[in-house]
């Protein structure tokens, strides 16, 4: 029972970073990939059909955290009060701006929000791990930028795609450098295996992104960078053994929550898949 809930929390967290990661990347990049307003609108609209679906993975993850890991929820959020408040402020700016963007002026909160959220998660993970927060802030921004660029190589065509491919290639090496630096500069951790495994997997996937882009296997490249975005949070929380059974709810609560969770998750997956499938059909 406990294992199921740890797995669910991990899945929702990974889903959030893998999906919302490209939202923030596209938010940071669309003004560079698109040269005029029409192009920029076109670029950002490759992301918007998935936007609501992507962001709610975080809401679901925190819901599970509250219901199934209440003592971790209180501990984690209040201990990193400043980081979470910053992330939330960025998230609110980004969420509102993406959905209401009717004028280029909205790009100010949109780009700023994406940057604050990406850097905020980096600072948070750096603090949890005991690594340098600045490095982690820059690192997560770089990884989300790469993920966004790769998403755009998959969803765009013509000169816009060429620009996205160029950006993605430029961003691979800094992402790999961040992973190496993060491992070297991390403090002592409880379970180093998670850190090593995560870093190795990310480096392997980044190594795969390059040839995938060269061979125009854009979907494959996208799957690689999606996984690279999901790994850091899991690796950091795993390495510091943050999630323990002591922080979890007792059996009756977990039992009461199991059926709703098992019923909803497949539904959400089916409906989110439908959105992806529909956008493929009309592209």
């Amino acid at each position, binding site marked *: 029972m406990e294992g199921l809930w740890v797995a669910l929390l991990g899945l929702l967290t990974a889903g959030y970073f893998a999906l919302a990661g490209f939202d923030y990347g596209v938010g940071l990049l669309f003004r560079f990939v698109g040269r005029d307003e029409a192009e920029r609108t076109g670029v950002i609209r490759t992301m918007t059909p998935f936007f609501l679906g992507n962001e709610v993975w975080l809401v679901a993850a925190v*819901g599970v955290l509250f219901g199934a890991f209440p003592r971790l929820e209180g501990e984690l959020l209040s201990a990193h009060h400043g980081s979470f408040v910053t992330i939330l402020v960025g998230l609110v700016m980004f*969420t509102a701006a993406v959905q209401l963007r009717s004028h280029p002026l909205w790009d100010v909160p949109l780009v700023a929000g994406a940057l604050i959220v990406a850097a905020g998660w980096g600072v948070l993970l750096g603090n949890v791990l005991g690594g340098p927060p600045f490095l982690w802030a820059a690192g997560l921004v770089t990884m989300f930028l790469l993920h966004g660029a790769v998403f755009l190589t998959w969803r765009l065509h013509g000169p816009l795609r060429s620009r996205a491919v160029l950006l993605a290639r430029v961003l691979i090496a800094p992402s790999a450098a961040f992973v190496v630096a993060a491992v070297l500069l991390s403090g002592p951790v409880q379970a180093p295996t998670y850190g090593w495994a995560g870093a190795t997997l990310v480096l392997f996937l980044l190594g795969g992104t390059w040839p995938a882009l060269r061979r125009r296997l854009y979907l494959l490249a996208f799957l690689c960078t999606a996984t690279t975005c999901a790994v850091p949070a899991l690796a950091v929380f795993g390495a510091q053994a943050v999630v323990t059974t002591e922080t979890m709810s007792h059996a009756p609560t977990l039992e009461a*929550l199991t059926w709703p969770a098992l019923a909803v998750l497949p539904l959400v997956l089916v409906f989110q898949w439908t959105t992806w499938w529909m956008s493929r059909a009309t592209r």
Partner: protein
Amino acid sequence: MDALGLARLQFAVTTSFHFLFVLLTLGLVTVVAVMQTRAALTDKPVHARMTRFWGRLYVVNYALGIATGIVMEFQFGLNWSGLSHYAGDVFGAPLAVETLVAFFLESTFLGLWIFGWDRLGKWVHLALIWLVALTAYASAFWIMVANAFLQHPVGHEERDGVLRLVDFPALVANPLFGLAFLHVLLAALTVGGVFLTGVSAYHFIKRTAEVDFFRRSLRTGVVLTAIVTPFLIGVGFGQFPIIGEFQPGKTEDVSGAGGAGLGFMIQIGLVLFLVSWLTVPLLFRDWVVRMRFPLYLMVIGIPLPFIAAIGGWLFRELGRQPWLVYGLLRTEDALSDVSREGMLFSFIAFTAVFAVLAIADWILIARLVRRGPVDAPAPVSPLVPAL
């Protein structure tokens, strides 16, 4: 003000803002679902146009409301970690169900509804808006279950200094839940009815050419308000005996903001009930439009149900003090170990952001309202890719 005061003020301010968005979201989604149903059944273009116009207002409001909702969810752990520590096993359960069953699904359905406009078959698309509405109600359902637990904790036992869940169905059977949930739903429908009425009246004041469009909208709004308000008032007064039994002294000792809130709520509820029923006969042959002066009252009346709802909420929550979980956990004992500066930072940051959101919501809705129904193929949301 100390960290406790700041944390309480922050909760009151952010929840009030959030509640404003939620009320309009719940009210409008119902109205939009009904309009879309009529559009699907009759194939009359006016119903499809109404769905699009009111649907856009709904989507704008939802877009900003979801942003406030995310902050609400985090706030418990950020500022009130004592609550998660002590009562998380019980209080966290309905909140987790809310985020999983309702919020997660609702946003997914809404994304598909927005994106599926003109792409999906009309019956599938219609089913989606009803699913959005149902999951929105489910959201309110579980939030009120959680809130009722704070008012009257049931279904738990205390062991090793923390609460454990022993009876999940008891949370739903909580006497402080059922009527309060109905009351909130009816209040949201009243907000929707008054909003529809006020916006339509504005267009008649501006001598709109869209007479048929706004006549139908105005009638829907007035009739909805007239049908809902008697039940709203009945369910409201029906709660006093329950409060008297489980929270003795709450109604008698009430003073300050809570007491004023209760007074405003009752007066506004009665006024809306009387005025909506006086207006119903005037719908005959558009008398109410020809008389003109009621139109101005309708526009002025738009904020009233919002004020009433905030008043009622203040009464419910302030009347619970000094308890966070009634009789079990004091508010001051649940505060997170966060410095006063940290709390001040989050209070200022969230209040500023929420104020900007509320103003942006108001400006955007006002602009869409002024523009009126346009026949250019404007998408229902900027989230929709150009076809």
